[in-house]
């Protein structure tokens, strides 16, 4: 008995279902989002050893291997360190559908922090964005806030 070997069709198995998670935000992260909700500002955490202020706050300073506990209030403003206007389609991990393009992703040094925070900059005309520009956070209305990174809608360029 022989078998046809040349079916001329290579098959693909598709798997398109999401894998669900529920990640703890942790004590430091919960302070960060609660401060946004209650006081519409950012907070960081200062290392007692090297003085570095990290935002968002976390429990450990990696280089010093020290536990961090001193929460430092910051404002809602910062400075653009780097940016990119994104023009390729990509499934938005928050919604599962394609995000409208273009949008601008930015690295922002919040005033009073030593590391870089990242978020969306509300400007897609590259000629109007420069490193060093001041930006200010635009938050959701309090009743819409959910205690996650989308409680910050984006950053507006203010000069």
């Amino acid at each position, binding site marked *: 008995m022989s078998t046809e070997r040349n079916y001329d069709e290579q098959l693909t198995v598709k*798997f398109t279902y999401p894998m669900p998670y529920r*990640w703890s935000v942790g*004590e430091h992260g919960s302070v960060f989002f609660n401060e946004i909700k209650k006081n519409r500002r950012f907070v960081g955490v200062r290392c007692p050893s090297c003085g570095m202020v990290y935002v968002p706050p*976390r*429990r450990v300073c*990696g280089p010093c*291997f020290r*536990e961090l506990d001193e929460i430092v209030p910051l404002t809602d403003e910062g400075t653009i360190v780097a940016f990119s206007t994104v023009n390729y389609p990509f499934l938005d991990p928050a919604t599962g559908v394609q995000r409208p393009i273009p949008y601008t992703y930015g690295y922002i040094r919040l005033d009073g922090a030593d590391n870089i925070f990242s978020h969306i900059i509300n400007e897609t005309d590259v000629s109007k964005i420069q490193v060093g520009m001041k930006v200010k956070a635009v938050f959701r209305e309090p009743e819409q806030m959910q205690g996650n990174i989308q409680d910050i809608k984006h950053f507006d360029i203010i000069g």
Partner: protein
Amino acid sequence: MNDVAIAGVAQTGHESRKDNMIYADMVFDVVTSALEDAGLTLDDIDSVVTVSNDFLDGRTISGMAVGDASGGQDKNISTVEGDGTFGAFYGLMRVLSGYGASIVVAHSKGSECDIRYVTNGMFDPIYQRLLGIEAISASAMQAGEYMQRYGVSEEQLAAVSVKNHGNARNNPYAHLPMDISIDDVMKSRPIADPLKKLDCGPVSDGAAAIIIASPEIAAKATSTPVWVKGVAHCAEDYMIGDRDLAVPVALKDAARRAYDMAGIKNPAEELDLVELYDAFSYMEPLWLEGLGLAEAGKGMSLLEKGVTTMEGSLPVNPSGGVLSSHPVLVAGLVRIIESVLQLRGQAGERQVKNATSALAHGINGPCGQSHCVWILNKDK
């Protein structure tokens, strides 16, 4: 093997949900505690191995996210995706190749993912995964095959759950210390025939860390060193259908090589306790057979004769085992930690008297596809 010691150990309590902790928080706790336990500082550590799984964590390259909390910042951090005993093996190899001391740290939070989906992800996506098979259903079939082959009953296996949950009552780290009867196990909710709820370990959140050290660093440590005498691992076929699930050949091979390395001729006589990876009740007798401590199909006779109880000549899972606490990946490292505590004489209410030699065991892959066996001793 050249002399290598375990100089520090630490674990979190194991529980169903650590709501206030991210992975890095748990890792920082156990790494800090393991260093404290050893009386060493991060300056004494020149090798960092983390253990995690990307599907469990929901994060690509999950080891990197705990780089700072593991003490791995600006160090040679590297990750093992598998059980903690295998991560420890990598940490051991680094010390044997000339490093002074390895931190090995494992974390997992079963509460953050859908564990059925994650273990379903172990299987072949084309032929098995879409059928829905995952760790419990695969293990249920292994249990069935083992019971059928050797005429082992559900009531017999229930006794393992009674013993191990009972032992857990003396372990402050255990997730499910329980005072239960064979009847309780038999009447517990059917999960996947022949497994009932109390035949299955829980899914826990937890972390654990050990410090594996050269004799020079071990001498600097303030803890009592426990020495690694032999270690080996072995894996068999990926496809479950290619294996004889009632005969753990990979474990037999790993055990034989670990015994040879440790110079153990008669393990039943020479070992004082065994900590094995009993994710389900049937695994304890099956793995005891693989370890050469019982003949094929006779694993249950050890418990029935009282050998493996706390009062017996070879207590098995004095900690309460994985049936009582199952942080996935972390659980194997916890077997090593329990062995170390026993050999140091620091196991509290669950202390095995005069323990000098212990065996710790971990598994990886469905139904014990691969096994890692450690022989530890009080003496060098």
